[in-house]
Every structure is written in C-alpha cells, then in structure tokens.
C-alpha cells in the first residue's frame, strides 16, 4: 500500500474510532406500543464534566428501560418511550445544535439536560422556538426559565432556595465553631453571580466571608492561589467547579497548613471521602440522595442496581442518578394525569403542583418550581451522614 494511502487510512480509522468513542450515536428503545413518547438527552458523556453527565444520561436510559419493561398507558393507549442520547462533550457550545438535532431530527417532545449551566440557555432557546417541547435540567442555568409558565422544569430547587436558604444555614448549624471562611469561586458568570448571594447567606447565618478569590476554571495549579487565603479563615468554601478542582484545592490547602474544613457546592462527596483521614469537616450539597450514604434500603437497592447495570466500581457512582431517574416516572405520571403524550402545555400543567414518590421524593409547586427535599452531606471524624432539609 502506498505510504500516503496508508496514512490516510490510519487517519480514517482514528476519526471513525473517535466518533464512536465520543458516544454521539443514539440509543433507541423499541417502539411497538400504541403511542410512542420521544425523549432526548443532552449530557456530557465525554470531557471534564463526564463523571456527572454520564451518570445523568445513564439514569434517564435506565428509567426509560424500566418504564418500557413495566409498560404504561396514557388515555387508554399502551405507550413506549424512544430515547436518543447526545453528547454535550462538556462544551456548552454544542448545546444549541444538539437540541436542534433532537427537536427536528429525532422529533423529541421532551429533553433532559444539558448538565452545564452555560449550556442551558442555547438549548432552551431551541426549545422555545419549537414551541411544543418540554425541557428538564438539573443545572443552575434552568433557574432563568423554570416557574415562568413555560414548559421548563429544573430537577432541583432554585439555587437561592436550595443553597442560600437551605444548605448554607444548615452548614452554619452543623459547624457552629466556624465563624469565618474564605470563598473560592470560578471566574465566570455563574461563579460571580452566585458568590454575592452566598456571601450574604453566610453573613446572615453568622459566618463571615473574609475574602472571595476567583480563579480561572481551567486552572490546575492551586498552590499559589491557596497561598492568598488569610490565616484567620477557619474554613474554605469551594463553589462551582468539578471534583478534580476541589481535590486540588483541598490538597493545596492542606500543604499550606489551612484548617481542614471545607464547605463545597457543586462538588460530590468523593474528594472528601478520599481525604477523610486528614479532614476535620467536609460538607457537600446532596441533591436527592447520596450514593455513598443512602438513607434507606430502597436507595441502597437503587445504587446496587445502577452500579450493576453500568459496571460502576464501588463508591464511584455520583448523585446525578438520584436527581434524574425518578423524573421519567414523574413525567409519565403527568402524561397519565393530562391524558396526553403530545400536549406539552397540558403535561406542564399536570406537573405543576404534583409530587412523586420514587427512589427519592419529588415535588413541584404550583408555579412549577422544584420543592423536592435536599440534603447536607457531612463528613466528620471520618464518619459521613446526610441531613435532609427543605421539601415543603
């Protein structure tokens, strides 16, 4: 074979391999019922956010498999769900085209995702233009759309309710000796917008935020940044990044001799669990439930089932399945109550003010804002527990 041809052939193999590894393909369920409900998913299955994104996508996939296996009827018709998953690849720039592909190409009526705050607006714009599509996202970006009489639902309470009025007061109550903290936030719109509210919430709860440091979201070298933290800080708040950044900050803080007290938001239990021997206190916000600290046998059974289904090693499942899996069941319940699988407005009305008892309890208020209970995860002296709050 000529060398140039061989090189081109090798390149083609690589490109094809890359495309398949990126998971851009679809995952279509069977469609042999009287009615077919089309659900699309936009999650980061590759890239930096894939630990959470993959689990969110898998949760929707598993919930749909379970619903199809069990079967359900809407308005006397036996229905099945067809599902198509797309890969956001941890890049918000992909959101608009993926949403468009799901809406016009796949004809999805319901979209779960995206899982990144900055990716929600472009996807939501595509949904708004379509006019008859519903969107669910767990991300903070959904706060700008949910509760406004449109078919947008956030899979968690608003950040103000969940963090400012829920998590932060709960943290202050659990850590009464911590009266001053330093705040580390990513230098982007989300980080800056939230820092102000978080600071006020901490102040109200009796905790002074002595300094707020913004850092580039792509930073991996945290040692010089952590050096900036004043010795008077009794703990560090790590907001809005990923587990890797949190782990890097915690290691750098330990090296710098800062008190091993970390309050996190948007981070899982894992960085704390991996360092539990060296920590005094580590808290994280639990959405739904925490796979490392399930509240009951049903949640434990779900962790086992999910881990088995996707061959996830022990302790590596994120909390994302808990804030995605049951919403498929809740959507089916709303379709049944509305008596339609296509009238998005009617289904939205049915979702508003409804509740659902799944692996975790879910609820929306009359405006469509999420009122499901959340939890404060806390690791103290190597022991972890989840304290539930909210849910009114």
């Amino acid at each position, binding site marked *: 074979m000529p060398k140039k041809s061989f090189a081109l052939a090798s390149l083609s193999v690589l490109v094809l391999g890359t495309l398949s590894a990126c998971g851009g393909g679809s995952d279509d369920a069977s469609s042999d019922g009287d009615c077919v409900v089309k659900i699309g998913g936009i999650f980061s299955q590759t890239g930096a956010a894939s*630990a959470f994104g993959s689990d969110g996508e898998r949760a929707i996939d598993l919930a749909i498999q379970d619903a199809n296996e069990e079967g359900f009827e809407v308005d006397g018709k036996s229905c099945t769900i067809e599902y198509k998953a797309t890969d956001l690849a941890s890049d918000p720039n992909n959101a608009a085209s993926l949403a468009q592909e799901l809406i016009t190409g796949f004809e999805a009526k319901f979209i779960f995702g995206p899982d990144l705050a900055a990716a929600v607006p472009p996807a939501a714009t595509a949904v708004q233009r379509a006019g008859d599509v519903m969107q669910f996202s767990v991300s903070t970006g959904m706060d700008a759309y949910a509760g406004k009489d449109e078919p947008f639902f956030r899979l968690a309470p608003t950040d103000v309710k969940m963090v400012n009025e829920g998590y932060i007061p709960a943290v202050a109550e659990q850590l009464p000796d911590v009266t001053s903290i330093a705040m580390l936030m990513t230098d982007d719109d989300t980080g800056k917008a939230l820092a102000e509210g978080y600071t006020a919430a901490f102040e109200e709860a009796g905790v002074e935020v002595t300094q707020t440091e913004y850092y580039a979201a792509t930073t991996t*070298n945290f040692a010089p940044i952590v*050096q900036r933290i004043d010795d008077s800080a009794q703990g560090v708040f790590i907001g809005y990044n990923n587990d890797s950044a949190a782990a890097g900050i915690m290691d750098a803080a330990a090296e710098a001799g800062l008190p091993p007290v970390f309050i996190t938001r948007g981070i899982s239990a894992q960085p704390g669990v991996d360092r539990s021997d060296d920590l005094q206190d580590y808290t994280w916000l639990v959405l739904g439930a925490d796979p490392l600290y399930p509240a009951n046998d049903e949640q434990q059974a779900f962790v086992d089932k999910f881990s088995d289904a996707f061959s996830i090693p022990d302790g590596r499942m994120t909390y994302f399945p808990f804030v995605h899996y049951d919403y498929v069941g809740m959507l089916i319940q709303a379709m049944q109550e509305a008596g339609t699988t296509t009238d998005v407005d009617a289904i939205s009305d049915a979702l508003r003010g409804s509740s659902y008892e799944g692996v975790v309890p879910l609820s929306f208020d009359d405006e469509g804002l999420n009122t499901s209970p959340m939890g404060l995860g806390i690791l103290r002296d190597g022991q972890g527990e989840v304290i539930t709050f909210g849910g009114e």
Partner: protein
Amino acid sequence: MSELLLTLLLGIMQAGLYTLVGLGLTITFGVTHILNFAHGEFVTIGAFALIGFSTMVGTAAAIPLALLVAVALGALVYLLGFVFTIGNHLQGLAFSLGLLLFTENIFLELFSSIPRNGPRVDGTLALLGGEQIAWSRVVVIITTAALVTVAAIALKRTWVGLALRATGDDRFAASTLGLSAKRVGLYAFLVAAVLAAVAGMCIASVSPVTPAIGVSYLLTGFVVAIIGGLGSPEGVLMAALLLGIVEALTSRYIDPSMTSVYTYSLMVVVLLALPQGLFNRKVVRAG
C-alpha cells in the same frame, strides 16, 4: 520574604513541568516538523501508569514500568502513524488531532474523570521564615531540574543528541551523512514520550489528576515552545521559567483569575519583539 520564596519555588516547580512538556514538543517539531497535538496524552499516560502500577507493585517499580509503557506507546504511535506523515505537515497535524481526541476519550472511558492521586513523599520542608513546602514538590523540582540537565547534556554530547540536532538543522544534509530522518524521528518521539511521562508522574505526585490533565499541560507546552522558539531546547527552558514564575507571582500577588491573560500577553509581547521566539536556531518553515 519566606512567602515570596515559597511562591518562587512553586513557580520553578511549575516551570520544570512546562519545560518537560515543551521540550518534547520542540524536539519532535525540530526533527519531524510535526506539531504533535497528541503529545499531552503522554503526560496522562505517565500519570495514570504510575498510579496504576504503584498500587500493584509499589512506587519504586512503578516508575520504570510507567516509563516503559510511555516508550512503547510512543514507538507505536510513531511507527503506525506519524512516520507516514513526515514531510506532510497537514497530514501530521490531522493525525495528531485525531489521536488526541481518540486517546482522550479512551482514557476517560478507562479511568473516568474522577480525580486520582499518585504516590507522594510525605512531610514538608521548612523554609527560612517559617513557610513550608511539601517534600513532594521539592522532589519534583529536583527531578525536573536533573532531567532537563541530562536532556541538555545528552542533546549536546551524545550520538542521539547529535543526530536529533543535525536532522533538525538540515534533514537533507543529515541524510547524506547516513542519518535516516525516519529513524531519528523515532528517537525524537521516544525522548518526547519519556519527558512527557516523567512530567505526568511528577504532576500525579503533587496534585490530583484526571484524563484531561494532558491537554491542560499541552497548551502551556505549546506556549513555552513558541516563546522559546520552536526547535530550541534552551528557549523552552527560559520560556518555561519565565512563564512558571510569572504565573505563580501573578496568582499569588495580583489576581489568580487573570493568570492566563498574563501568560498569553507574555507570548504576544515576545513574539512581537522576537517573531522567531527567544532562541530560535533557524527560521522554521511553516505549512
């Protein structure tokens, strides 16, 4: 004063890592004229090979094993891919980009994006004035300094180094003396793979790593290679020191959110003043 010393040491440590990555890029470019976008993946390979092997056979045995893996994979990607793109910049670029996407996703599938820590040297070293620096970071500073010195001497004093420099300077003239460009290209890729893998092992010993670690160091590797002058090891060292220290000082004393602004501003200023970089040995042909 002690705080400044600590900041400088942190900057020097980071500079050492940038040097190792940048050296690999500049050596492969100098010899083959291939801008290897997949080079950062050898950083990931080094880090994860060390983490994996150290849990199985202990750290001492894991280091040579991790290097062996990096060398084997370096040889593999060169012999199965890059060797056929020598002389065609576009093909080389496309192949390296494809390889980057492919390997990054393979690594994510294999290791997930959960952060992992490599083996560390416990304890801290007290600096004058009371500040402490982790021994792991001191070991990284010593390791990178030693390796950069060895690499510099090897490039000047050994037959392989001579071959690399001769082929980089003039491939045709070198070939008339019996130096096969393809064979020398293999040496370049193996040296680059080792340097990047050592960088990966060093990174894993001071901070948590994910499969994305290679890409984040690759970008800085390119910056130091460009500032230094593509093809110039001395330039890479100078540029890495400049960048590492500027990064540390600005993060510590000015504004950590603006670090990349300072870094890229530095690159722009250097390239405006010296379009061929700080130490370019010759005008390199582009495209």
